[in-house]
């Protein structure tokens, strides 16, 4: 961190940034309070942000607390990652009309919209980068995703407080955003540090009245972000995870977790990287028009594993194993990286509080694996 590329401004002046983004044609979207959590919504004024609130997260538990301070980004995150902004939960794909003797097919694309996402956490910025890899860089470029993604301007906020569910430092995605953002903020009491991470970010930053960040402020930011990393529990050695998980295919722990797992799909819905979807056609009664829509789906549903007259993952055990192994092992083979960013949402938003970190620890315990091997060779 050097002082030359960082600016600083009083938190009280944040409205200037909102106004500037608005003037450049962005709809600013940020964290807002709703139904006991934060959800993304349009921010017109700084006062729309949850100033003076913090979140407490634990397995199957999310609570907000009013601190009465002027802290703007005190809440780490809510159930939504950045996923809905590019990979929409419900995306119209095609409109099909019956015409004389045939069908006319009209592809549908989302209306282009410039959205400035204020308050994206480093783990979520990393999640967006993973989704980019999947939807944009493979052999097929996904048009609706590309269209939505193009309009996104990402303003990250580095983390200076970790929740008990956070493990971004293990996944090397945070608590400082490394790339994939346009602007990044760090909140230090009543001051906001700001840096640009892209040309578009630089263009905004040059128009924003900021003073150069002092070495003292930068050192303080590094200290707090470092402390945030230190305060997190550690996950297993990353490099060993894929093979260890493949080796644990018959581990008795899968039965144990299947007894708790509801197969309700919540972990996959809140996951910033899960990309499964289903396609639905909605014809009118007379069969003259139909809409084809892409919907978020999950590897925990029955239909997901239903192929050609047979369900290849009939049991909850099969589905949980598929999900966890994909996320932490097969993802490496498929995309050359882990499918987990360590945001901890799957832990918080699991209605029965299944903690992936505990499951991985248990699955990697050598006694369990040897027990599994024994059961293989009676």
């Amino acid at each position: 961190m050097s002082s030359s590329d960082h600016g600083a401004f009083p938190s009280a002046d944040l409205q200037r940034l909102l106004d500037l983004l608005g003037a450049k044609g962005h709809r600013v979207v940020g964290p807002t309070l709703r139904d006991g959590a934060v959800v993304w919504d349009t921010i017109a004024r700084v006062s729309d942000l949850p100033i003076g609130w913090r979140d407490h997260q634990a397995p199957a538990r999310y609570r907000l607390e009013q601190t009465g301070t002027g802290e703007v980004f005190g809440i780490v995150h809510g159930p939504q990652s950045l996923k809905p902004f590019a990979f929409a939960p419900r995306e119209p794909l095609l409109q099909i009309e019956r015409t004389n003797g045939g069908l006319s097919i009209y592809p549908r694309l989302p209306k282009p919209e410039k959205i400035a996402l204020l308050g994206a956490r480093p783990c979520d910025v990393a999640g967006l980068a993973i989704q980019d890899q999947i939807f944009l860089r493979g052999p097929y470029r996904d048009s609706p995703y590309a269209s939505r993604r193009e309009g996104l301007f990402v303003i990250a906020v580095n983390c200076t407080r970790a929740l008990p569910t956070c493990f971004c430092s293990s996944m090397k995605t945070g608590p400082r955003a490394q790339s994939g953002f346009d602007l990044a903020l760090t909140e230090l009491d009543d001051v906001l540090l700001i840096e640009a991470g892209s040309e578009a970010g630089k263009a905004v930053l040059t128009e924003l009245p900021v003073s150069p960040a002092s070495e003292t402020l930068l050192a303080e930011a590094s200290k707090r972000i470092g402390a945030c990393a230190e305060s997190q529990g550690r996950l297993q050695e990353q490099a060993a995870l894929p093979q260890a998980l493949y080796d644990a295919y018959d581990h008795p722990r899968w039965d144990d977790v299947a007894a708790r797992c509801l197969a309700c799909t919540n972990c996959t819905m809140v996951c910033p990287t899960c990309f499964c979807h289903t396609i639905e056609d909605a014809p009118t009664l007379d069969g003259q028009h139909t809409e084809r829509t892409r919907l978020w789906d999950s590897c925990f549903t029955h239909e997901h594993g239903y192929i050609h007259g047979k369900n290849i993952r009939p049991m909850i055990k099969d589905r949980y194993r598929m999900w966890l192994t994909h996320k932490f092992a097969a993802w490496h083979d498929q995309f050359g990286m882990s499918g987990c960013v360590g945001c901890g949402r799957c832990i918080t938003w699991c209605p029965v509080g299944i903690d992936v970190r505990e499951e991985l620890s248990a699955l990697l315990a050598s006694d369990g694996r040897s027990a599994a091997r024994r059961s293989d060779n009676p």
Partner: protein
Amino acid sequence: MALLMKGEQKPKLGVFKFASCDGCQLSILNLEDELLLLGEALDIAYFPEASSRMDPGPYDIALVEGSITTEEDRERIKAVREQAKVLMTIGACATAGGIQALRNWADIESYKQVVYPRPDFVRTLATSTPIADHVKVDYELRGCPIDKDQLRRVITDLLAGVQPRIPTDSVCLECKRRGNVCVVVAKGMPCLGPVTSGGCGAICPSMGRDCYGCFGPAEGVVKGAGHPPNTSSLAKQFHDRLGLIPIEVVRRFRGINGAAASFRRESEAWAVEHTNSEGS
């Protein structure tokens, strides 16, 4: 699976009522904008709730509302089945026995004494049972009442001669697609959404309240192909973490779909817990 063949004539529709409140039949009439299209696509031959025209069968599609609670209905449903190419149950009563299946855990004679001035006039079975316990059912639409869009979709599919798609994934899937905040996690409410079939569009959690399971247990896409939801894990969470006492867990699962197999097993397990805790 039963499908309709495309023919010269409009397929004949019959709508039959058993023990029920008529709410699901009203959902058909609530199609409003598409009711005329429905009338054009189908010959509505028998639908006493809507029309005095009551043509005899056979029917291409029979929609059956309500559960079996009397000797007469036990015979009548067989007659309906014989007349129907495709029989589809509509709503929680027809698919699981409905709220009136609470009688299955009670003494029907004492109920009669309490409710009716002349209980000797009442002839009823001791149980309320779903249609599928009596005749073969081709398709089931869940809900109390059913979701009219789901009904429209299934009829559209049948008319097109394709296999209707009736997902019974959890309410959570629809809830999260809508961007709702989970009421279990953020508010500690004993929501049945994780083990309940969607199709409703997660109406209750969208209104900030907990799902009470009116679409019944979440399970496979085709009846019998799936596996029952993990009600025991959710019930344990209600009890251990959300502070419900055993009788409250019983009541949670013993509602509109209380007689659906997996909900029934769960409530009966907790009824034993309750009796044990009373005794200690």
